[in-house]
């Protein structure tokens, strides 16, 4: 780790933090409030064409031929393209490029993109789609992951013979990871209690309210500009260069204001390549706005997982070992699936100490919309299973569910069983906070039947040192420009997707240079203007962009301080910056404005600008895959959920959710709380309401915001955000992530609360009322069969 990457947890000036640590407005808040913020579909260019996609009506088929001639002949149609014009495959993970912008030889799910039309308006483009003839040879469709695991004919993705041998698998396997740390069999044999159970996590999707949209314009001098609602500008930039076979220096990618993402805008998507290609072919600007239905087909949502866990513990509650076997339904393409498969095991090894641990995860392809990274990528599902199982262990040992989590706390500055470095760890404070706020001790196990409390914990990465494509370059870069007006402009490749990363960059620069935040502007996510950042995923932005910003700001500060010190003929340590002014600490009435200081510095050092960067230290276990899931800092969370169960209807109502989250230092507690509340909301919704379901034909069962039911204001419980600040030694001022970790415990905490309420264990998601009623019936018949005096809850 370079010196540039570690800045300490303290305020830059002796007066303490002036901006950081306080709730403050977002940099783009008012622009969004008054309707001025420009999102991708708000952009209209002169002469712009509109694009619509022809999609596969079959879950699995070969394309024998496509005839576009009639469509092309339609008045108002400027171009019709098919897969052959972009034959190079891509994929966000460089090892698994298996996608084409438009299908070249076969289609793999209902909704797969086959052809695209550019026309003068959407109506004409739609009419043209009806005129395209595609001859399909329908193939057997895999809808069941168990079948995909064992049946290899037909292959959803053709594999080379060598690859088949190397994988050593039958079936349609996308990725298999089998890792063991310690002697798990011996550890489980040595346990006093062993709980074994099966858990199901269903598919869910992001449902950001803004549908995906992209626009492209090709200029005669060969420059291609693409505006896209992406959360990772840099990967889109690379993928466009690869697929379009254009040098990346001739492509500019801009992310306008983004209407939510949650992982659903992390992959390069067909529409980005298609508008670019069509802009090049037609010489006109081209836009594509996906319908809500198309967004559901694009998916990349939470992977369904079938999980079997075995957990052993001693009588005192100490865990001896954990053994997991997981089948992951990947859908039709790889997307981030290689990472997902690792994450399904690698991210479980905190906040508890596992003396021995094994996981065996297999991701298979099926003919359904492709799964990918959704908030809490790959780790929400195993976390659900394990936290319910941990409650089962506590039940068996007659331990308080919070207590068993304390007993197994791994501590700070330690190493997990799979070799991940843990630095700060505020999990115990998180448990204390939710225990206190929920009045756990007075109420857990003591509420009237039908109402209960449940707890769960979790940890999550704050970025990862695995940069998707291997390189030694910084993960985050920043440039600062100091203007003669006193304004500082931050140029960052980081993607503000609503989480407020641009506001954090502004706050850091203001803090470091003693400026009013209004004197700092941010230019972001434009590949022509901004240094590379790897984008908004893996909860990396605050940590990595934050550190890079501190690095750049301290370099600029050094220039200013030294110029002022030289002009004033004093030692540099006497120069102090605050509230837009520069003081002499020992002679307070000697002061100039920051603007004047900028002039002094520019006279002394020429045009003022600095760069900053961040890269992760070398991390991870010394084994294949050991770097996947290795993070410079982990966040920790505990939730207590209060739920009620209507035993007549089976409906679970989450009444309250107390969310205690260790985010290191809360750079802006209001934004941290917003992430915590939004995360908990999303987890609760997945547990009791949402399901990304595919019907028996392989067709998405309800690709709309009517049928995919995301909770409204009246369906959302009271959310109580309790911020815990552990101050991480490597985070910017000690900060860690807050955007994904706080989703994890919601789901198992609901299951555990239902157990407290009515004594049933819900292990298969989603927790529909029908399942609750079935479990209650089973409980009643079991109680009837049990001799009096030993009945259940």
């Amino acid at each position, binding site marked *: 780790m370079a010196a540039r990457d570690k800045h300490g947890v303290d305020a830059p000036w002796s007066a303490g933090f002036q901006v950081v640590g306080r709730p403050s407005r977002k940099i783009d808040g008012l622009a969004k409030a008054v309707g001025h913020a420009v999102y991708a579909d708000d952009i209209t260019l002169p002469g712009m064409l509109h694009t619509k996609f022809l999609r596969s009506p*079959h879950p699995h088929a070969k394309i024998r031929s496509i005839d576009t001639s009639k469509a092309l002949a339609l008045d108002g149609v400027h171009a019709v393209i098919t897969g052959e014009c972009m034959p190079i495959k891509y994929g966000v993970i460089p090892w698994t490029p298996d996608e084409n912008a438009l299908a070249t030889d076969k289609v793999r799910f209902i909704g797969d993109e086959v052809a695209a039309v550019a026309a003068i308006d959407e*109506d004409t483009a739609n009419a043209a789609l009806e005129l395209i003839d595609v001859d399909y040879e329908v193939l057997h469709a895999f809808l069941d992951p168990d079948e995909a695991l064992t049946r290899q004919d037909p292959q959803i993705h053709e594999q080379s013979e060598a690859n088949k041998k190397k994988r050593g698998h039958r079936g349609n396997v996308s990725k298999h990871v089998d890792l063991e740390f310690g002697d798990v069999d011996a550890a489980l044999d040595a346990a006093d209690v062993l709980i074994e159970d099966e858990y199901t996590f269903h598919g869910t999707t992001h449902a950001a309210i803004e549908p995906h949209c992209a626009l492209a314009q090709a200029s005669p001098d060969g420059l291609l500009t693409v505006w896209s609602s992406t959360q990772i500008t840099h990967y889109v930039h690379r993928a466009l260069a690869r697929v379009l076979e254009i040098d990346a220096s001739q492509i500019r990618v801009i992310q306008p204001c983004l209407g939510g993402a949650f992982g659903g805008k992390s992959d390069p998507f067909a529409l980005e390549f298609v508008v670019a290609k069509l802009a090049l072919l037609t010489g006109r600007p081209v836009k594509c706005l996906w*319908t809500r*239905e198309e967004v559901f087909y694009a998916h990349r949502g939470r992977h369904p997982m079938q999980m079997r866990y075995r957990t052993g513990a001693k009588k005192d509650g100490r865990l001896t070992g954990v053994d997991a076997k997981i089948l992951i339904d990947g859908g039709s393409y790889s997307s981030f699936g290689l990472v997902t498969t690792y994450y399904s095991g690698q991210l479980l090894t905190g906040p508890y100490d596992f003396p021995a641990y094994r996981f065996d995860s297999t991701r298979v392809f099926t003919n359904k919309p492709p799964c990918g990274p959704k908030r809490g990528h790959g780790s929400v599902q195993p976390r659900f299973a394990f936290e319910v199982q941990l409650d089962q262990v506590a039940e068996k040992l007659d331990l308080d569910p919070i207590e068993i989590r304390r007993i197994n706390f791994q501590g700070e500055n330690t190493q997990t069983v799979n070799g991940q470095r843990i630095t700060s760890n505020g999990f115990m404070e998180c448990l204390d906070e939710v225990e206190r706020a929920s009045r756990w001790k007075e109420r857990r196990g003591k509420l009237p039947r039908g109402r209960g409390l449940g707890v769960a914990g979790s940890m999550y990465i704050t970025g990862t040192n695995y940069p998707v494509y291997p390189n030694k370059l910084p993960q985050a870069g920043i440039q600062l420009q100091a203007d003669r007006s006193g304004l500082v402009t931050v140029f960052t490749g980081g993607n503000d997707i609503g989480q407020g990363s641009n506001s954090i960059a502004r706050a850091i620069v203001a803090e470091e240079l003693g400026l009013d935040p209004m004197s700092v502007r941010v230019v972001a996510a434009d590949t022509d203007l901004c240094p590379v950042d790897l984008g908004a995923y893996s909860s990396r932005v605050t940590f990595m962009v934050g550190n890079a910003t501190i690095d750049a700001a301290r370099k600029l500060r050094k220039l200013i301080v030294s110029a002022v010190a030289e002009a004033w003929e004093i030692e540099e340590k006497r120069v102090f910056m605050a509230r837009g002014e520069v003081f002499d600490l020992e002679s307070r009435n000697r002061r100039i404005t920051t603007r004047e200081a900028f002039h002094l510095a520019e006279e002394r050092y020429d045009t003022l600008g600095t760069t900053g960067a961040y890269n992760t230290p070398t991390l991870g276990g010394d084994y294949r895959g050991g770097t996947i899931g290795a993070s410079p800092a982990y966040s920790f969370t505990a939730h207590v959920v209060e739920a009620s169960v209507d035993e007549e209807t089976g409906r679970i109502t989450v009444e309250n959710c107390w969310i205690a989250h260790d985010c290191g230092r809360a750079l802006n507690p209001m934004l941290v709380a917003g992430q915590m509340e939004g995360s908990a909301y999303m987890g609760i919704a997945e547990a009791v*309401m949402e399901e990304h379901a595919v019907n028996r034909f392989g067709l998405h*069962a309800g690709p709309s915001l*009517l049928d995919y*039911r995301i909770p*409204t204001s009246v369906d959302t419980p009271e959310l109580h955000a309790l911020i815990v600040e552990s101050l991480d030694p490597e985070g910017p001022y000690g900060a860690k992530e807050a955007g994904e970790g706080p989703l994890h415990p919601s789901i198992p905490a609901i299951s555990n609360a239902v157990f407290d309420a009515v004594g049933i264990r819900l292990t298969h998601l989603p927790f*529909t009322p029908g399942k609750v009623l079935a479990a209650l019936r089973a409980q009643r018949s079991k109680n009837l069969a049990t001799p009096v005096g030993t009945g259940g809850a």
Partner: protein
Amino acid sequence: MLRLPKFEIARPTSIDEVVALLSEHGDDAQIIAGGTDLVPNMKHELFTPKVVVSIADVPDIAGVRVESDGTLAIGAMTTLHDVASDERVRSIAPALGHATALISGPQLRRMGTLGGNVMLDTRCQWYNQTHFWRKSLGYCLKKDGTVCHVVQSGQKCVAAASNDSAPALMTLDATLVFHGTDGRRELPIDDLWRADGIYNKHVSGELLTEIRIPATPRGHRGAYEKLRDRDSIDFPLLGVAARVDWDDAGDRVARAEVCLVALQARPVRLKKVAELLVGKQRASAELDGAIEASAERAYKQCRPLPNIPGDHEYRHEMAPVFVRRALRACVRASENASDAAGV
């Protein structure tokens, strides 16, 4: 954006003009009131009318009034919001007040009309989808196709009536005023429905102008219970309207009704179920028993199909629960009839 197919708009300013337009264009015309059902259905290409006939400019078909004989007359163009928040509706027809307050969300209640809800198209998970979606399956019996995906090899469409107002109006003996080429006629609401999901009404080519609810007795109580996943926006997965009228002395049940929606093509009246309550003493064990028996009988008489989204076996299980809850809400309601809809 999902686009509307092309059409022309007609803006008639009288009932006669509307009737003439409907007569002239036949199946090529669609009436638009609030548009909250028609516009999504047109975006799905379930309807592709050449002429959309707006009735927004037709005078005197919106508003609530109470006639001298106590009849509650509600103009078909009255918005659901205005119906739900009208004190006279809540007092005379509490089940309707409650049902309309539970339709969709706040914006749609301000756009959607009572007439539109009565005339709502039936719904099905295999039908309320885009053209692409339906085409991928070779369409369905209700629209453009020959097979039903709900009932394998089914020859009759089983799309579900999904209008919350319908069962409430049925418990209230509502009559509907239609205008057609033969002039004005009144139709008891029960006579509107036919058991065909493709089009579940006996009326076509006519304009619904008014919903008339005869005066309810002093002892009238009504309630509506709605099963849905979310407490806003969603259509019913099951809707139960109940009516309990106490006799003049306020001691015994003089009349009871139970009507359900979101089961099959037509809203259903469970006559035999409700009759169990008649004559039963207020706050008595026999009344409680009759409510339980009603619930059990409702379970036997209801057969939800996997037509609308959600687990149909669960919907079946909920039929007795919601019948019981609706009846209990009625008998629990205080003398202040405006509270009767509350639960």
